[in-house]
């Protein structure tokens, strides 16, 4: 009967195609959604400027990307992991367990994190202390922990407009959250002197004081956004009092809807970030599985193309999109050319 034959033959085809796993000819990349735009710009240029096919770039987050990167060596694993933070020792250990021993770390540049609000709203000039006082779960008052009483920005800092506090900050699955906690909340905590107060309350336990500094209030005035910056933008458009945390490149693409706040009186821009004046920035990386070089065509070529002056340099397309180029790019180029693995 015809469809019995059909089903038998399709099953046969499926099994055959399952067994013919041979060399794939494109580079596979996965990881951070912050690095994704840059990686896709490079992949596009690489595809149209070389004889190699355009690499396939997936997102999914730094941790998820590194997890897949460390799954093992072979054509069925990814060749490059993008990350908005450096690889952790535990991840290197997992990698080594699974046979991924030769990892090349490539720092592509720096990414600024900016605070922006609705274009028609009030202007803000923040310091890290303002954010700590506005978002901390508990504040130290006379040697005791009390729930954060501040509900408007002017209560956190009298110089700020008396606008209700509604903050849209990246959720904990984002690498950006880590930077926000360390460079804004913890900094603010130390600047206001709350850190010492927390230390005193906790009997000198530094870790406990740090986690108190980075604990974010859960009474609805701070909202974790687990989606992308487009979601944060939509939330601000719906609630004009909202202040959101964005990547610099996202803000630069939406300057008709958002106005950016200064941090410690510095306007965020690729210039102020590259000089280090603007405090909230972090390096972006990708990691190459050096064991795949030679097996996967175009892998090393893609990596060296990525960090070439014409692309990752200050006049390249990445800088035009908002990447702050790395002043030590030459060293990175050399590391990619020699495939200098980590730990060597």
């Amino acid at each position: 009967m015809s469809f019995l034959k059909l089903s038998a033959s399709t099953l046969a085809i499926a099994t055959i195609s399952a067994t013919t796993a041979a060399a794939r000819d494109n580079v596979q990349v996965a990881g951070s959604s912050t690095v994704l735009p840059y990686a896709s710009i490079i992949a596009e240029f690489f595809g149209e400027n070389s004889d190699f096919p355009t690499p396939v770039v997936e997102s999914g987050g730094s941790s998820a990307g590194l997890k897949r990167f460390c799954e093992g060596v072979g054509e069925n694993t990814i060749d490059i992991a993008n990350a908005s933070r450096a690889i952790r020792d535990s991840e290197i250990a997992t990698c080594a367990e699974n046979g991924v021993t030769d990892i090349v770390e490539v720092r592509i540049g720096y990414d600024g994190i900016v605070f922006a609000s609705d274009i028609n709203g009030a202007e803000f000039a923040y310091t890290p202390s303002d954010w700590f006082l506005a978002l901390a779960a508990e504040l130290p008052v006379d040697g005791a922990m009390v729930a954060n009483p501040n509900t408007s920005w002017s209560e956190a800092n009298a110089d700020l407009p008396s606008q209700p506090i509604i903050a849209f900050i990246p959720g904990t699955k984002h690498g950006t959250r880590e930077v926000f906690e360390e460079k804004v909340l913890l900094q603010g905590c130390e600047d206001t002197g709350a850190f010492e107060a927390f230390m005193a309350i906790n009997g000198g336990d530094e870790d406990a004081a740090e986690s108190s500094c980075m604990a974010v209030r859960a009474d609805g005035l701070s909202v974790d956004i687990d989606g992308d910056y487009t979601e944060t933008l939509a939330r601000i458009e719906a609630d004009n009092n909202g202040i959101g945390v964005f990547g610099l490149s996202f803000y630069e693409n939406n300057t008709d809807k958002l106005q950016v706040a200064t941090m410690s009186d510095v306007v965020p821009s690729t210039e102020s970030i590259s000089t280090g004046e603007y405090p909230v920035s972090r390096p972006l990386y990708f990691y190459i599985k050096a064991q795949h070089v030679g097996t996967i065509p175009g892998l090393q070529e893609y990596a060296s193309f990525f960090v070439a002056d014409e692309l990752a340099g200050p006049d390249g397309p990445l800088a035009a999109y908002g990447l702050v180029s790395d002043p030590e790019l030459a060293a990175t180029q050399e590391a990619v050319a020699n495939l200098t693995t980590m730990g060597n």
Partner: protein
Amino acid sequence: MTDLSASKSGSLLTEDKRTAKRNAAEKRFRAYGLGAILLACLMLVLLLISIVTNGASSFKQTYMAFPVTVSQEEFDAAEGSILKTGAYNKMLQSALMDYLVANDLLGDATEDDVKNMISGEAAADVRRMLLANADVIGTEIDFSLLANGRIDGYFKGRVTRETAALDTKITAAQLDLADRMTEDGSMVTRFNWSFFTNPDASVQRPEAAGLGVAILGSLYMMAVVLCLALPIGVAASIYLEEFAKKNWVTDVIEVNIANLAAVPSIVYGILGLAIFINFAELHQSSPLVGGLVLTLMTLPTIIISTRASLKSIPPSIRDAALGVGASKMQSVFHHVLPLAAPGILTGTIIGLAQALGETAPLLLIGMVAFVKEYPAAYSSELGLFGEASTALPVQIFNWTTRSDPAFVERASGAIITLLIFLLMMNALAIFLRKKFERRW
């Protein structure tokens, strides 16, 4: 009893209290029903309006036409550099500048303004064209090239003079220039065929992004689903319905199939990741894996609808066939199955439509990716449907997360495209049912 006699008294024509109450209850119920339908329609209309107003403009695209001459030296120099398309881009920029000056269109636009009018994709188009036709090098060629996404947005109402004043990526002088070029005829907005054929493009080139790879990927997956789910589903249903003994084992199977139909689709994605990618070592992001996962998801739907249509064939047909000496199998394949075919087809098409719009399981098997190469149906290295691709619903998801506002328009355009595909499939299902359905 007194109550009963009381209600019976009086004329039938005058409404007594209880009748009035019952009538009022019925009127209320009708009002609720009508209200529910109106509410549903209102939501649907709002959804459609928002999608169409956002997305209709993605079916049009702004192009600009001007002559470009690429000399042999320029060609060689460009091909010798690392960023070849960057070199072509510079040639295009100076050619556009020359054209504007020669035709007295420049006005108060600065050199930077002119440079940013052209899409980054234009240089890649020119390079492809020159590599394919080496004989045009050195001659004057009239190119029709993509304009920058912001300029394109100006002709679609997405970018206005007000937003341009605040936007750092576009200047008022560029908009004036665009107006002058439109009058001159060197800038035109026309139907955007490349939206359906182009592959995806990076965040810097929303104007070049298209659904080509996504449509191809969805097509491959639907082919896999059709070739696997239909025969397996029909064979399983025929066996269960016509041959299997009715006992507790078949009951358990039946309950499980009904349950599977209600399992959240992401579960199939997790299963697919574990079985097809990690165990069977099929390729990440490939339409084959996507198709297999969607097959698992669609099977229960097809089995349930096939069994229902087999059940609806009257037993007299089977009895008559058996009566004239047909075997059980002959009675099923010669008589029951052809009569049940319209119902099976309808169920299959609806199952396919469901699979076409499914996103969640595809997220887990790596189909949410930036894929620029058209996937081949067969390659000697990667086998059948083994090359990386995306699919329509994940392409929509992908575009909604991009920073350039032009991608909102593209995503809405892709939703319209997907809705049209779904509408066509459902219309086909209704047509087949109406045409071939038999009632007893």
